């Protein structure tokens, strides 16, 4: 990326798979590390832990590069899957250390704007702004169940216990939330093109 040309993330992964841990890894890191760190911060709530897991994520990406299959999803989807999985491992380990029966859900997991946070923010893109605005339109009930499932790794039974709701209600809220998200994405795409 140093010469200013756009980089194909799939080619970077292919180069990593061939054993190159130099510039392909650096370029992949430059493209995605700040987004991955934001996701890890959202899930873990601790900057130092998020930075530590960020390292593990990129080492794992390098390790798993030979297994990446573009027909099964985009590079960013692959990276997010690895990052989420490592963050959930860290949350479970934390839960075991502290003897918690349940992972705690707090305001730090709430979706929304983060202006005014003390962290150093990379300049926000129109894409991120459009996405956040769209997600803010999700019903609070739908956001809550999606956050608990996706960002805290809870099953529908655990969510039902945490929110004191029938399992059927949790499932129907997840389905409604996912349908709403699915509807929003094409609208965001169109607004970015316009």
């Amino acid at each position, binding site marked *: 990326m140093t010469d200013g040309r756009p980089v194909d993330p799939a080619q970077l992964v292919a180069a990593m798979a061939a054993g190159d841990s130099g510039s392909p890894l650096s370029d992949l890191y430059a493209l995605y590390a700040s987004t991955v760190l934001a996701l890890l911060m959202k899930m873990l709530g601790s900057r130092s832990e998020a930075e530590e897991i960020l390292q593990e994520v990129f080492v794992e990406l390098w390790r798993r590069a030979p297994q990446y299959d573009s027909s099964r999803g985009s590079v960013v989807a692959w990276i997010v899957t690895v990052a989420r999985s490592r963050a959930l491992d860290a949350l479970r380990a934390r839960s075991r250390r502290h003897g918690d029966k349940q992972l705690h859900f707090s305001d730090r997991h709430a979706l929304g704007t983060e202006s005014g946070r003390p962290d150093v*923010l990379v300049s926000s893109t129109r894409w991120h702004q459009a996405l956040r605005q769209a997600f803010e339109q999700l019903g609070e009930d739908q956001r809550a169940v999606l956050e608990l499932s996706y960002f805290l790794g809870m099953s529908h039974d655990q969510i039902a216990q945490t929110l004191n709701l029938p399992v059927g209600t949790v*499932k129907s809220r997840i389905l409604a939330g996912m349908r709403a998200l699915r509807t929003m994405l094409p609208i965001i795409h169109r607004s970015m093109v316009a």
Partner: protein
Amino acid sequence: MSDEKERAELLAALHAAGAASEEDEKELEALIEADPSLVAVVKDFQDSIMALASSFEPLQTSPKTLGQIQKKIAREKGGFLTKLRSWLSEL
């Protein structure tokens, strides 16, 4: 929408959201086997949740982090994990 399609969509949503139980996963797999067009439903939901996951304000990483990652990888190179990686690449 038929009850069967509604059920398949629910399972796909639970799977993408990470809330599916083992039984749900098995049921979804069986439904996909019977109707491969369900893969597109799952993928649509996955794309949506991925967008959600990558929508947060990007954060500046520490300047030291990349160097630390490269050091860890350098330590692994030539070791057992490199052999494992090479084996995995042949799968």
